């Protein structure tokens, strides 16, 4: 149980408190993950982020800056947020939880069934942290340290982004998820980003397949489904076997491709 709830006024004092209290301390946003006993998070000292002005969404020259404490529901309600990210946030079907869970918390948790990470990765989001500065999402996810997330920056992008998530049920855990962002010019794909969830903690970027899409080696949904199924290595669990998950991953990626391709074309 949290027995020490600290409310720093500045980012530097927040990181200083983290340094002071070490592993027993955790940054505390909406609390939906830390307070949920099923996650088994041992946090004695909470460093609350509510006074750090991290709950704003604003447009900057190079993109959209979303504060780490912005809730899923605020993401959905904000007209500036890309539609794909709104749809990803709505994958969390409980409005009660959407009013509490934050974008920063979802990124920091690096969950295999993350609601937002495939989409943010495909959108080329960058993460502004107190310790690392602004880094690409993939770099943040590859870091193991508990960096304090301040903002997420969605770069201005052209093209079309689509997100897909396969649940057996409305409120059930994701079997697999996928997000693709694609830019086309003159009928040719000039940029493609494909990220998958459900494979390993966080989200993975399928760079090889992205290149094959751009160079035209992969140009059909069926081809992409097959390639993705071969490329990803999810683990078998209650949600399904490896073969099933690979198959579903391929279908989701193919559907994203179909949507992006058709709309961009």
């Amino acid at each position, binding site marked *: 149980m949290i027995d020490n709830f600290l409310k720093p006024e500045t980012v530097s004092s927040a990181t200083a408190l983290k340094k002071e209290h070490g592993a027993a301390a955790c940054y505390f946003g909406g*609390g939906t993950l830390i*307070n949920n006993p099923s996650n088994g998070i041992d946090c004695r000292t909470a460093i609350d982020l509510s006074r750090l002005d991290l709950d704003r969404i604003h447009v900057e020259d190079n993109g959209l800056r979303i504060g780490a404490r912005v809730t899923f529901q605020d993401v959905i309600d904000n007209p500036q947020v890309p539609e794909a990210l709104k749809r990803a946030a709505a994958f969390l079907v409980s*409005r*009660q939880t959407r*009013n509490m869970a934050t974008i920063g918390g979802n990124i920091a948790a690096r969950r295999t069934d993350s609601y937002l990470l495939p989409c943010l990765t495909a959108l080329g989001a960058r993460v502004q942290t107190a310790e690392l500065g602004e880094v690409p999402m993939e770099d943040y996810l590859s870091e193991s340290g508990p960096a304090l997330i301040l903002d997420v920056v969605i770069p201005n992008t052209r093209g079309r982004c689509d997100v897909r998530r396969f649940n057996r*049920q409305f409120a059930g*855990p994701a079997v697999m998820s996928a997000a693709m962002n694609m830019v086309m010019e003159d009928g040719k794909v000039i940029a493609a980003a494909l990220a998958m969830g459900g494979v390993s903690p966080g989200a993975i970027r399928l760079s090889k397949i992205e290149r094959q899409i751009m160079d035209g080696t992969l140009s059909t949904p069926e081809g992409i489904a097959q390639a993705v199924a071969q490329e990803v290595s999810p683990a078998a669990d*209650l949600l399904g076997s490896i073969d099933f998950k690979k198959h579903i991953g391929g*279908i989701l990626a193919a559907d994203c491709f179909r949507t992006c391709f058709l709309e961009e074309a």
Partner: protein
Amino acid sequence: MKISFKLNGVPRSIDTEPGRNVQQLLQSMGQVSVRNSDDHTGFSGSDTVLLDGRIVSAGLLIAAQIDGRSVQTVASLSQGNGMSAVQSALVDAGVVQSAYNAPAAALAITDLLNRIPDPGREDIIDALGGLYIRDSGYEQYFTAVKLARQRLGDPEYSTRVSDEFRPDLREVGKARRKVDGPKLVTGQKAFVEDRVEPGSCVLKMLRSPHAHAYIHAIDVSAAEQIPGVLLVITHENCPDVYYTSAGQGAPEPSPHDRRMFGQKVRHVGDRVAAVVAETEEIALAALDAIKVEYEVLPAIFTIDAAQAENAPLVHNSRISFMSGAPDDLDEQNQGCDPRDGQVIYPFPIHGYPHRNIAASVSGGIGDIQTGFDEADVVLERSYTTKQVHCTPCENHTVYTKMDGDRLIIHASTQVPWHLRRIVAKVLGIRENRIRVIKERVGGGYGSKQDILLEEVCAYATWKTGRPVFFQYTREEEFIATSTRHPMRVGVKLGAKKDGQLTAVYMKVEANTGPYGNHSLTVPMNACSKSLPLFLCDNFSFDVTTYYSNIFPTGAYQGYGAPQGSFALQTAMAELAQTLHMDHFDLIEKNRVRQGVMLEILRCLGEGREGVPARVESCGLDEALTLGREMIGYGTKEESGDTDHIKTGQGVVIVQQGSGLPGLDQANANITMLSDGTFMVYSGGADLGTGLDTLCVKIAAETLCCDMDLIAIISGDTDTTPFDTGAYASSGTYFSGNAALKAAQDLKRQILEAASGMLDEPLERLTLAYPGIVQGESGQLSYQEIAHALERGDGGGQITGRATYTTEDAAIPYGAHFCQVDVDTRTGEIKIKKYYALQDCGTPINPELAEGQVYGGVLKSIGHTLWEQMHTDQEGHCLNPDLRDYGVPMIGDLPESFKVKLVQTDDPFGPYGGKSVAEISTNGAAPVIAIAVHDAVGIWLRDWPFTPEKVLRALGKIET
């Protein structure tokens, strides 16, 4: 830490640990409606509150987070004893049933209507997406929101929320406000947990980590030394009494094979020790201090493993019989191990524990072999079902305390009198020392027909003299309550070329798990609620129930019928395919009809010889005709804008019973009060289904007065008369008939009193609305009669009394139609249309009956498509939470979901009423299987029908 916040507009300051859970904090501050049904994982929404005007889960908040903020609970929605527009709409739409989450629903819909004054279907799904409702499904919430929206503009707005029936009657067959609805939706104290007094002790259970083991040694000395620990109970100091947890009529057709604590544990989660302590923290610390040495045994989890030669014996116990012991009993008992304890059969049910057989039964009519010999086509199939859970919103809960020398049990139970009997037996005390008060039940569905925690808590109070509270966690719900029996059901059908059945054989093999509660009756019901749907001269069945080390099984709405129905109805569809017949035509050719004599019932008694019955009412004609029209049977429209979506349709027929004729009994008394109003004292156990409302309605109808002249107390062993309880679909038929007959008895007494007062013969007098006796010479109000009876020279207060028993059967029927889309790329099955046409005789509470059907159907859709308890190889549950287990939420509803009540007038039911709830769980599995076959040509014979199974059957991924 000192925190200050506004609670329902009132500034509050308290000292608290910063990490204290806000749901618990608010409950401790008297906000009882902020409940916990998901171990604070934020799934089920029972803990919904408004934080600064936005709905959140209090269970996912800690105290420090509400400092300086505004918290609103359901108490903020209404003033005094009134209801808000949203709350009254919820009650009137019929969705306030077991109602554990009704206050949360009221908050969520209020929030919705504040944001979106005229919400659409998707908005409503979004608003309620975080709310788990098990009782009434979710469909009627759309009606409730519509009604609430109107009432916000016009508080007096009223509309018809369901079909109405019996225009010849004032109350019966009409939607009326549920009598306990306002109390429940406004979040007043109603459930067991609301009765816990400050200073009460807490009971916590140490559970087995092993599926099968002897307790070699147990040391509780360190636990007992912890300050605040009052009592530790183990197999070494508990009562040496064997019993069954099944709340069934005594003598029970279940073996007495469990002790409060045994030296042997038979499933992961089995009881090892109970700690009673001053606080939960102390109790949990004491559990950690108990040292146990186990001798781990090989475990068995499947029917095949239980059947295997030299299989480990789950009960290598000493067997005995209260009556009818077999001649070879001594031989059977050779080699039993005293550490296994005893198995005591009240009477023989063909159980052979030393072969892992808890019970078995065979029977039939005609000559099955001749039937198969006469057949042109013989079809043989096998169907399997997985273990699924009742998952009531309210976890199992009990609170016990002493009142002088009497033990008071506040229980969330379906069977108050069986509970009292079993506790008395276990504690070795007389029943007059025990009072069971059935509180409102936040969902039972069968799992609260068993005595699963009450006797331990009662013993703790009896030993310590202290009030003790015991509430399961959600994980304990999964591993230590009761579930639907996994079954393997073989079906063999013989038929002529024209489809006429010549022979029907069912072989039911059931897995009862560690104990034999309901081990005869549930598996037998797979036959007895399936076979009588068809007419054939030659029926035969064999039922065998095996012990194993899976989690406990027991009663679950449908009580074996869903498994049997899945097998037999699907097999009939497979037979139709083999015969190149339309399935609908095959049903029509062979189905039961009004007026036929069901000889098969002769061999389908529940632990006794059965009685053949004539079908006095059967709504299948109308149900099938209407359902066929509604769904456009045979003319399915393809959804497909893509070629990988395939559409299919199906139809099945279903039945259940109305209580257990010859076994059940219900009693009711109705007393006239001083002002001419009435008090009903019913033994019936209202589980939220509206049984109390039904009894009040029947009494009002009979006594020719408004329902608000009648109040009711039910399910209290001190103040109300005996009733066997709410199971086997008995409420309407037995408890309802008891109320009817008590009202008729009181009516006779009222007329007799009036006869004297008016000096007119009885035959000239009638009761008339609104509560008068009309004679030729004048009239008397009920108040005048009551006053006269209670005067110094009066005849005394009058009470109508009734006992209802019967040998007559009132069988409900139904037809379920379904249309699915199957995605051949992903294996997903989407239910586009589900229409349940239900004959429940006269629907006495039509809107509540519809809710019961919606809820029952959705539960069974859940079992068919998503729900399953997964275990590892050692028997540990891998998904003991609602989300991973897979309960349906509002977004899982069929796109078009309709319930149509088909009225028949049953001669035995009260005002023609029959049961309605259980039957609705019997259709989904077979009708979805049949529709999937129609869509893509595969037969799914193992539930749940996962996308992966579909893809494998379609050859889309390797098998």
